[in-house]
C-alpha cells in the first residue's frame, strides 16, 4: 500500500511547471540534476541515473520535491554554462540588484577525502541588496515518502534514507518546518555576501562532510576539469560552440564507472503534453552505439569511445549472444516497467513510468549497431583483442540465424512485430562489417562464405522488397507503403550512396510526407500527435552533407535546427512543430549525437576529407552492389 501523500496544502511548491527547455543540466558522470531557470533543482537521482529521485517536482509540483534558491521578488533571469564546462551560472536581475547562482555536481576529484556524490550551490550577491528565499524539500522513492530531516549540531541537516544518508551543509542555518520534511531560509544579501550549500549523499560510512570554506576552490577545480576535457575536442569547423556543448552533454550522460552512456537523465517527460507517451530513458540503448562511437572517435575522445565499446562487449555478457535493447549502466536488464502511484506527471501527462517495457522487445538492428561501433574502432586503428573478436563472431552467428525474423524495430512500437527495413539494413551492416574486418585481418573465426551468402540475401531483400516502385522510395517495412526517417540512414551505413537515384528519390518522398515547413521531420506518419523527432532532422542534414544535397543546403538546415536548442544549447528528444517547444526526455544524448554527426560530415565535405570511415566504400574495396554480382 502506498504511503500517505503529503497534503497539498502543506507541501511546499516550486510554482507552476516551467517549459521543458527551461531546464539546465549539471552532473558528475554518474548521475545528473536538472535546474530550472528559477533556480529550482527539480530532478536528481542518486547514486545512479536510474536510482529513485530525491527531487522530482519536474514530474509533480506538490509531491516530487525540490530545492529552490531564488530572490523573493520578481526578477529577470539570464544563464549560461561557465565557458567549456558543465558548471551552470544563473543570474537573477532584480530592481534592487543582481545575484548569481552557481550550480554544479563535483567531478574530477579523484584524490583526498571528497564526498561520494555532491551538489554544490553558491549564491553571490553581485550588486545591491536582495532578499533571498531557500526552500529545501527532498522526497524519497518517487515522492512516495516525505523526508525526515534533523539538524545535527554544526554538521548540518541529516536525512537518512533506505540505502544511505543525505547531508545538507550551509553557511547559514535552515529552519526545519513542523513536519520535519522540508527546511527553509529567508535572508537578505548585500553586494559581496554569499550563500554556500553542499548537498552530499553517501552509502558508505563515515560520509565525508566537506568544509564550506573549501567550496570556492573546489568549484574552480571542477570548472578546470571540464575545460581540460573540452580542450581535447578535435573539431575546428562551423558550429564549434554547439558541437562542444553537445560533446559536454554527452560526457555528462556517460556513466564513468562502467563506460555506459544513458539516453537521457529523466523519465516520463512527455512526447505529447497531457498524453501518455511517457517513457523512462535512464538506461543505455545499444541502438545509439554506432552513431555515438563515431561522434566520440571523430572528436578525438578515444578514451570514452573505448570505454563505451568495452562496456557494450563485456557488460552485456549475461545475455550474449542475445542482446537486449537496453541495459542499466552496469549491464543488467532494465527494471520491469511500473507506473508511479504518486507522481502525476509533467503538466498532468500521466503515467510516470519507472523502468522500460522495451527491455523485452526483439530489435535486430542492435547487432548491427554494436558491430558497426566495433568496426569503426578497428578501422581507425583500435585493436580488437581475442575476447572481443569472439564476442563479435557470436553476434554475427546470431544475425546469420535470425535476420529474417520480424521484430519491433527502431521505433519500439508496442503493437507487435513486423519486418522492418531498418532492422534488415542493420543486419546487413553487421555481416558486412564482420566480413570487412576479416578481410583486413582484424577478425578471425567467422565462416566467410556463410556470412557473404547471408549478406547478399539481405541485400537482395532490401533492394527488391523494401523498395516501393509506386512511391519511388524505400519504405519502412518489407512490401510496405509507409515511410520513416530511419531510411535516411541507408547511406550512413554504406548501403546506398547518398547521391544515388534511389536515395535522392527516397529523400524527396520522406521530406514530402514527414517534413514540416521549418525543416523539421516526424519520425513516421502517426496519429499519436507527437512532436517532430529532433535527431531525424539532424539525419537529414547529415544526409545532405554526405552528398544527398549541397554543402549550402546542409549548412542551412543545421543553422535552422539550431533555433530549437534552449538558451544553454540543450536539445530534448522531440520538437513541437507548431510552437517549437521541446518535448520528451531532456536533454537527449541521441539528439546531441545527431548534431555532432551532421557537423562532422559537413566539415569533412567542406574540406574534401573522407566521410564516415566505417562505410563500405571507404573501409573496403568493393561497392555493396558489386558484391551481389
Amino acid at each position, binding site marked *: 500500500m502506498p504511503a500517505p501523500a503529503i497534503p497539498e496544502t502543506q507541501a511546499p511548491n516550486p510554482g507552476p511547471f516551467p517549459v521543458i527547455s527551461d531546464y539546465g543540466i549539471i552532473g558528475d558522470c554518474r548521475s545528473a540534476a536538472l535546474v530550472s531557470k528559477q533556480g529550482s533543482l527539480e530532478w536528481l537521482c542518486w547514486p545512479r541515473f536510474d536510482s529513485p529521485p530525491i527531487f522530482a517536482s519536474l514530474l509533480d509540483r506538490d509531491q516530487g520535491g525540490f530545492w529552490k534558491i531564488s530572490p523573493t521578488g520578481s526578477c529577470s533571469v539570464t544563464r549560461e554554462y561557465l565557458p567549456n564546462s558543465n558548471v551552470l551560472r544563473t543570474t537573477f536581475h532584480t530592481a534592487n540588484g543582481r545575484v548569481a547562482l552557481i550550480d554544479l555536481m563535483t567531478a574530477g576529484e579523484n*584524490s*583526498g*577525502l571528497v564526498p561520494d556524490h555532491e551538489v554544490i550551490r553558491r549564491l553571490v550577491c553581485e550588486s545591491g541588496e536582495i532578499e533571498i528565499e531557500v526552500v529545501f524539500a527532498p522526497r524519497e522513492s518517487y515522492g512516495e515518502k516525505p523526508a525526515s530531516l534533523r539538524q*545535527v*549540531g*554544526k*554538521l*548540518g541537516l*541529516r536525512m*537518512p534514507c*533506505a*540505502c*544511505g*544518508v543525505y*547531508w545538507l*551543509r550551509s553557511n547559514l542555518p535552515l529552519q526545519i518546518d513542523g513536519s520535519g520534511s522540508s527546511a527553509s531560509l529567508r535572508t537578505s544579501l548585500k553586494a559581496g555576501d554569499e550563500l554556500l550549500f553542499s548537498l552530499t549523499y*553517501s*552509502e*558508505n*560510512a*563515515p*560520509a*565525508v*562532510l*566537506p*568544509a564550506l*570554506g*573549501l567550496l570556492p576552490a573546489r568549484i574552480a577545480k571542477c570548472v578546470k576539469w571540464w575545460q581540460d576535457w573540452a580542450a581535447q575536442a578535435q573539431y575546428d569547423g562551423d558550429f564549434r560552440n554547439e558541437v562542444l556543448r553537445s560533446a559536454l552533454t554527452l560526457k555528462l550522460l556517460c556513466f564513468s564507472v562502467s563506460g555506459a552512456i544513458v539516453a537521457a537523465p529523466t523519465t516520463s517527460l512527455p512526447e505529447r503534453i497531457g498524453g501518455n507517451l511517457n517513457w523512462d530513458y535512464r538506461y543505455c540503448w545499444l541502438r545509439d552505439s554506432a552513431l555515438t562511437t563515431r561522434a566520440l572517435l571523430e572528436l578525438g575522445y578515444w578514451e570514452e569511445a573505448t570505454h563505451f565499446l568495452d562496456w557494450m562487449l563485456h557488460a552485456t555478457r549475461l545475455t550474449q549472444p542475445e542482446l537486449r535493447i537496453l541495459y542499466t549502466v552496469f549491464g543488467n536488464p532494465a527494471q520491469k516497467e511500473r507506473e508511479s502511484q504518486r507522481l502525476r506527471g509533467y503538466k498532468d501527462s500521466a503515467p510516470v513510468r519507472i523502468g522500460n517495457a522495451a527491455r523485452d522487445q526483439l530489435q535486430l538492428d542492435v547487432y548491427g549497431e554494436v558491430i558497426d561501433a566495433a568496426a569503426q574502432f578497428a578501422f581507425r586503428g583500435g585493436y580488437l583483442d581475442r575476447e572481443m573478436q569472439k564476442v563479435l563472431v557470436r553476434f554475427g552467428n546470431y544475425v546469420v540465424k535470425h535476420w529474417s525474423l520480424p521484430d519491433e524495430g527502431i521505433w519500439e512500437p508496442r503493437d507487435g512485430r513486423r519486418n522492418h527495413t531498418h532492422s534488415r539494413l542493420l543486419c546487413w551492416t553487421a555481416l558486412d562489417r564482420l566480413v570487412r574486418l576479416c578481410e583486413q585481418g582484424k577478425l578471425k573465426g567467422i565462416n566467410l562464405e556463410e556470412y557473404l551468402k547471408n549478406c547478399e540475401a539481405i541485400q537482395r531483400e532490401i533492394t527488391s522488397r523494401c523498395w516501393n516502385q509506386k512511391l519511388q522510395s524505400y519504405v519502412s517495412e518489407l512490401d510496405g507503403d509507409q515511410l520513416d526517417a530511419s531510411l535516411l540512414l541507408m547511406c550512413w551505413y554504406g548501403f546506398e550512396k547518398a547521391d544515388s537515384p534511389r536515395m535522392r528519390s527516397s529523400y524527396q518522398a520522406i521530406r514530402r510526407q514527414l517534413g514540416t515547413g521549418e525543416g523539421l521531420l516526424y519520425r513516421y506518419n502517426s496519429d499519436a500527435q507527437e512532436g517532430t523527432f529532433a535527431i531525424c532532422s539532424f539525419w537529414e542534414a547529415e544526409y545532405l552533407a554526405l552528398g544527398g544535397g549541397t554543402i549550402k543546403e546542409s549548412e542551412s538546415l543545421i543553422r535552422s535546427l539550431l533555433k530549437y536548442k534552449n538558451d544553454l544549447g540543450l536539445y530534448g528528444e522531440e520538437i513541437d512543430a507548431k510552437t517549437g517547444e521541446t518535448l520528451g526526455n531532456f536533454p537527449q544524448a541521441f539528439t546531441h549525437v545527431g548534431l555532432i554527426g551532421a557537423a562532422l560530415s559537413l566539415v569533412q565535405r567542406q574540406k574534401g576529407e573522407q566521410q564516415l570511415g566505417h562505410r563500405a566504400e571507404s573501409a573496403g574495396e568493393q561497392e555493396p552492389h558489386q558484391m551481389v554480382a
Partner: protein
Amino acid sequence: MNWLSWIFSGFIATLALSGMLSTSQGLGLTRMNVPYLLGTIVTHDRDRARLFGFFAHFLNGWAFSILYVLLFQDLCLVSWWFGLLIGLVHALFVLTVGMSLLPSLHPRMASERHGPTAVRQLEPPGFMALNYGYQTPISIFLAHAVFGAILGSLYHLR
C-alpha cells in the same frame, strides 16, 4: 596457552568477522565501512585507506582474539556459547565506549560541536554508531557474537 590453536582459531574468527561486517554493508544493514573508517586514520587517500584499514582491522581482530583466549585459559572454560557471550560484551564495549571516543581519537573525524573543518571531514558515528544506519548495532553485535562463537568452538585449551 595453546599458541598454535590461537593462531588458527583467531585467524578463522577474524576472517568471519571481516566477512560479516562487509556483508552487512553489502546487504544494507549498515553503511559502516570498517576498513575505510580505520584506514582514514593514517591516510586521506580513499583507496589506500580501504586497503590499510582492511589489514589494520584484520590484524587487530587477530590480536584481540588473544584476550578471548586468555579468558578461556584463565577460567578453563571454552565453548561456543561462552565465546559468543564474550563477543556480545565486546560489541557492547565497541558501540558505547569505542564509538563515543572515536571523534577524539580519529584525526579526520568531525564533531557535532565544531562541525567539519578542512582536515576533519568525516561523519562521526554518534551514539551506538546509529549515524551509520539504524541497524548498525545489530550487525556489530552479530559479527562479534559469531567471532566469539568461532573462537570458542575452534580453540583447544591444550
